[in-house]
């Protein structure tokens, strides 16, 4: 897996975090670490670009959830608690209301994984970069 970061400017600065390759139990903590780096620099809005993400395991879903929690200023969950970690994201906000983390262009396989895990309803999913950036 390779992770790249670029900056985009909408109404607010947005970090576009692109994941190329497979996001699994061997590397999901790298993605969380990259998001922490972004957050530390003061960028509070992340667009997770899944255009070139070929596979996401449950560990990858936990990473996505953890980034959402991080950007909301909440304590990161214990990633051992996979199911609870995923669904804790929906405990305080209605579906689709994650204001600081949005997803871009998940491919059908990844989209199915998001859906099967019950995570899809918690995030705005965009298919166009400029629309996604402008939505923050």
């Amino acid at each position, binding site marked *: 897996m390779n992770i790249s970061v670029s900056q985009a400017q909408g109404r607010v600065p947005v970090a576009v975090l692109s994941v190329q390759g*497979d996001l*699994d*139990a*061997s590397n999901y903590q790298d993605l969380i670490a990259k998001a922490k780096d972004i957050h530390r620099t003061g960028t509070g809005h992340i667009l997770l670009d899944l255009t070139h993400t070929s*596979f996401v*395991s*449950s*560990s990858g*879903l*936990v990473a996505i959830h953890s980034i959402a929690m991080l950007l909301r200023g909440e304590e990161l969950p214990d990633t*051992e*608690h*996979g*199911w*609870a*970690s*995923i*669904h*804790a994201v*929906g*405990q305080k906000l209605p579906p689709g209301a994650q204001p600081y983390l949005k997803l871009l262009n998940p491919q059908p*396989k990844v989209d*199915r*994984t998001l859906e*099967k*895990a*019950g995570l899809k309803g918690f995030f705005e999913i965009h298919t166009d970069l400029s629309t996604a950036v402008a939505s923050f």
Partner: protein
Amino acid sequence: MEHTLDVAAELKNLAVIRHFIEDSAKRLGAGLNTIEDLIQAVDESAANIILHGYKGRSGKIVVEIRKEGSALVVCLRDQARPFDPTRVPPPDLTLPLEERRLGGLGVYLTRQLTDGMSHRVTSEGGNELTLRKKIR
């Protein structure tokens, strides 16, 4: 025809296991959706063995895939402490989010993605997890 992979139980080998399942399932005549579901289910199961079975100890995972009638059958064998994932109760999706139990996302996805899952303790005291997926 039977295909077998014998690898060290290390997270870096999850990609090796996924590629093995993809190649073998193709050779055994499975379609794209069947292959994708099986890859995800086997990845989740193997990650659980490495993270929660071996828990950092060295060991190996043997993955075997074969065709039985109109289904693909995958067996994962290990020498980790006995653990039966089929006894992990499914999450109750009717409960409010805050009342759902902890853990088990990988097992939940595996159940969602396969048509059958069984477990037995081997004569050597390890585990044999069998996943069955109808070819579609």
